[in-house]
């Protein structure tokens, strides 16, 4: 974010109350009943938020970060048992009745939730719901019409265009980003002292995430509120927070200013977490730190440090007792870590080098680097040429007249050659999933052609299709949903081989082999998917996809449902498998950092078309399409210093409807470049669809690189 922001934040608090903590949480304990015993979701959490300060709470799923904030709001289910103390400007909140709390909620403390799609009541207008927040607290003096007028102002403030009209819209008429803006409008309606934002951007696309973070910043400037920002995304924290708390297993394991936490982490977990994120600004050479194992169960936690089973610095003393959050040696006064080996970590850090990679023994998988020159000589394993998929839009009547078409995929061309990875990226609704589903169908497409391993899919017989499926396999996004919970791992992995008619001996030999290949123990062969963690389940899916020894693997967002520390392990596995088995990947993702890490080439999709395609280095270092630039620029980098320096390209508005795309260049309605062009040039964007052409060379004399752009006025702009 801007430097202005950090200047404001360097001086928290208002005049007259400089040191008064706005929110003071001490020794917070939250537990829930479960079949196995009480789950201690939060175990002795203490923190303070000053007025005007942004506190980031980071942690993986199950770390207790959301539960602790719901406790502050008094919104935990009645079965939760809560202990400790939560004070807001000195007033104890724990133990207040629902009626007493309801006077504080929404007025002094407001909350923004994760999923904007379900956060608004579907049957009332957005305006009514915002006005309600005002009316509940306004007393007699607030009239419904005044509240409605204020709702318009608030919607305008959070950047909803044409607010006076849109205030009458129902939530389903708003996009996800707009709904989150409406929720923020609701949160700031009563000028609260504290805003708790629980993963406010997790459900949103990156460009929309950048917009919403900006709105949150505006909201803070307008209200002067303190913000508790809960997120799993260290990039978001780096650019937004003043101070950070890292949570693990229901406890704060490290806290300090954002710079300290990111530059000199003193708890091995934080260090590993930071090392596990693929970085947009580093790319392929970065070793990803996988944190082995998984977070402990919070029922009957053994004594000692909860992270010790996964910690590379573990020693006998770690299991003796749980370390307290103490000031870290050789660090700032506010920097605390819960680890008995902080001194060793500080010493190792002083020596320099990539501490996380060394400590966790992470290394770059030395895959054979596929370079652009030899690309043309390699076999095309998957070729898509001018692929078209339109979904008809019909009237509801008896005859279901066709009135239009959703142009989900509209002329997409790319190829994947042997041994390489193509990353297909774009925001939700851009057509990337439709593209891969068309490929996986192996049916003749509506328009264009698909070629798999040398055969065109048109005119394939059933037998041909079955044969090709051996070489073309897929891994889906959600490993929970893509495994039948009633089959043991053995059957799951064996199924493709049974379908293809392999004999029993082969299958019973292959299954343990495959499990070993993906890093699962073969003793687990008779277990059911429910007994595995998310990362392990994704490994099962990968093993199943590899069972037939395919040549091409389609990976549909394979790591986006996983926590970062787990994600790193799966990405490393994919890297390794590619190197060992010589696979080609079509890797679909919305996370460009992941693509930068794993892909050789990248194709950027927007509204059913590829706007830019080329080698990862070329595209990321010198993006030429304004959309690619905006997309890259929107992705937060987990480094506060870099984040402060970066200038964001903010896109306006939402994705246009693919049923009615803009004429000419489809991106022009949101294009930041378009706005700066003169009228004549703009007219060209409106009239002529830009063809995909070889991109400008990065330097005047550089050889023509593997890089194509579909923009009339393409120019290089470095944004990472």
């Amino acid at each position, binding site marked *: 974010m801007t430097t202005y922001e950090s200047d404001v934040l360097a001086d928290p608090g208002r005049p007259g109350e400089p040191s008064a903590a706005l929110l003071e949480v001490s020794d917070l304990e939250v537990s829930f009943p479960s079949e196995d015993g009480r789950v201690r979701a939060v175990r002795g959490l203490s923190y303070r938020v000053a007025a005007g300060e942004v506190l980031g709470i980071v942690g993986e799923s199950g770390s207790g970060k959301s539960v602790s904030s719901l406790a502050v709001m008094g919104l935990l289910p009645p079965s939760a048992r809560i202990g400790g103390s939560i004070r807001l400007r000195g007033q104890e909140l724990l133990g207040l009745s629902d009626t007493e709390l*309801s006077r504080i909620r929404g007025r002094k403390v407001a909350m923004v939730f994760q999923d904007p799609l379900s956060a608004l009541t579907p049957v009332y207008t957005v305006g009514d719901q915002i006005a309600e927040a005002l009316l509940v607290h306004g007393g007699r003096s607030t009239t419904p019409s005044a509240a409605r007028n204020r709702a318009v102002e608030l919607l305008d403030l959070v950047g909803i265009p044409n607010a006076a009209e849109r205030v009458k819209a129902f939530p389903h008429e708003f996009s996800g980003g707009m709904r989150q803006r409406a929720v923020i409008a609701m949160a700031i309606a009563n000028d609260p002292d504290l805003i708790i934002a629980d993963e406010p951007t997790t459900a949103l696309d990156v460009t929309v995430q950048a917009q919403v973070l900006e709105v949150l910043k505006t909201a803070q400037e307008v209200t002067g509120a303190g913000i508790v920002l809960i997120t799993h995304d260290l990039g978001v924290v780096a650019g937004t927070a003043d101070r950070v708390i890292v949570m693990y297993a229901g406890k704060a394991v490290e806290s300090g200013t954002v710079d300290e936490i990111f530059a000199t982490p003193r708890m091995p977990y934080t260090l590993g977490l930071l090392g596990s994120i693929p970085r947009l600004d580093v790319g392929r050479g970065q070793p990803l730190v996988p944190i082995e194992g998984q977070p402990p169960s919070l029922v009957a936690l053994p004594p000692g440090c909860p992270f010790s089973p996964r910690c590379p610095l573990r020693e006998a003393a770690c299991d003796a007792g749980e370390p307290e959050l103490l000031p870290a040696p050789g660090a700032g006064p506010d920097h605390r870590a819960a680890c008995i080996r902080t001194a060793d970590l500080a010493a190792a850090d002083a020596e320099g080098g990539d501490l996380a990679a060394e400590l966790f023994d992470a290394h770059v998988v030395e895959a054979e680097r596929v370079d652009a020159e030899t690309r043309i000589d390699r076999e095309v394993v998957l070729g898509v040429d001018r692929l078209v998929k339109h979904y008809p839009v019909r009237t509801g009547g008896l005859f279901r007249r066709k009135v239009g078409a959703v142009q989900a995929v509209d002329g997409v061309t790319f190829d994947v050659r042997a041994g390489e990875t193509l990353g297909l990226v774009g925001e939700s609704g851009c057509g990337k999933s439709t593209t891969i589903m068309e490929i996986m169908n192996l049916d003749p497409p509506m328009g264009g052609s698909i070629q798999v391993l040398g055969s065109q899919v048109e005119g394939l017989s059933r037998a041909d299709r079955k044969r090709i499926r051996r070489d073309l396999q897929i891994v889906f996004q959600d490993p929970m949903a893509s495994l039948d919970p009633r089959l043991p791992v053995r059957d799951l992995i064996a199924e493709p081989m049974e379908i293809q008619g392999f004999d029993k001996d082969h299958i019973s030999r292959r299954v343990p082999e495959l499990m070993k290949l993906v890093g699962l123990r073969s003793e687990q062969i008779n277990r059911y998917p429910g007994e595995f963690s998310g990362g392990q389940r994704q490994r099962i899916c990968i093993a199943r996809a590899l069972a037939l020894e395919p040549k091409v693997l389609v990976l549909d967002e394979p790591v986006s449902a996983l926590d970062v520390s787990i994600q790193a392990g799966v990405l490393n596995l994919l890297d390794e498998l590619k190197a060992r088995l010589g696979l080609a990947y079509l890797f679909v993702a919305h996370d460009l950092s992941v693509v930068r890490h794993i892909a050789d080439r990248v194709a950027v999709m927007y509204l059913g078309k590829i706007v830019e395609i080329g080698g990862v280095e070329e595209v990321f270092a010198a993006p030429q399409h304004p959309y690619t630039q905006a997309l890259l620029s929107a992705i937060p980098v987990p480094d506060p210093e870099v984040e402060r320096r970066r200038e964001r390209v903010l896109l306006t508005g939402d994705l246009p409807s693919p049923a009615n795309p803009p004429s000419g260049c489809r991106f022009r309605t949101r294009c930041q470049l378009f706005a700066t062009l003169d009228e004549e040039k703009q007219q060209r964007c409106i009239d002529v669809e830009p063809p995909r052409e070889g991109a400008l060379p990065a330097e005047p004399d550089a050889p023509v690189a593997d890089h194509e752009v579909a923009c009339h006025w393409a120019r290089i702009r470095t944004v990472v």
Partner: protein
Amino acid sequence: MARFLARRLVNYVALCLVATFLAFALAAMTFDPVGKLQARNPPPPQATIDAKRAELRLDEPIPQRFVLWLGDAVQGDFGRTVVNQSISDELPRRIGVSLRLFLLGTVVGIGLGVILGVASAIRQYRFSDYAATFFSFVILSTPVFLLGLLLKYLALELNSAAGAQLLVFTGETTPGFQGGFWAALVDRVQHLVLPTLTIALGQIAYYSRYQRSAMLDVLGSDFLRTAQAKGLTRRKALFKHGLRTALVPMATLFAFGFGLLITGGTFTERIFGWYGMGDWLVYGIEQDDTNITATVTLFVAVLVLISGWLSDVFYALLDPRVRLR
């Protein structure tokens, strides 16, 4: 939306005709109204039988009979019974009797069903929830005639315990009742309680099950949490945001629920001696009377389709997401 509803209505007219024709054809094919005449002892002369056959158009093809009947029906004449009484004269009174029962049963059933469902959802897994679940399943699995008889028995017990005729279980009013307006009203209510309860109980059980699960869905929803985060108390959020949203699926159920109710109504009218449409249908079948059967079927079809249409209307009123188009 108005156009959509209008178009629906047109479709429904066609459906009504189909339903009525099917009932008419089935009745005409199986009924033998002159059989009883022939079975008389001494047998009536052949001329009398032939006259009756001609009067009932028994020798004409069924489609033709239906068209002739329908032609009269659209003009308000639903034909004559086998014993040569005008159906149209009898119709309004019987419709009145049935509608009173059905409407009251529906209103009581939906009202109490929704309340019971919401209460059970809010108190999930407590004793009252289990009790409501038990009650609902017992009612749902009890045939209506048994329920009616049970209620009759309970009313007898109650009356003898109270030593007075608190609840009456035959007819709509006491024959030859004399008294002022209030006394007459009390008399009517005394007659009304048992039959209404008989059909409402099934409705309560039916709606409460669905309302409970709809409410449970909503209880865990994010928007309820948002409403509380705004500063609404839990109770207020539950009613204003939760219940209002959980009512939406009830609109769809209304169409089905009403069909169930009519089936139950037929038995109920019989058991409690209400001379309504259901009673008439049973009578018509006993008498091998095609015209009565077709008339009652048409009435039921109209009611069911009106309820389906109302379902659409309610849905549109409750849920803005379907209001457009």
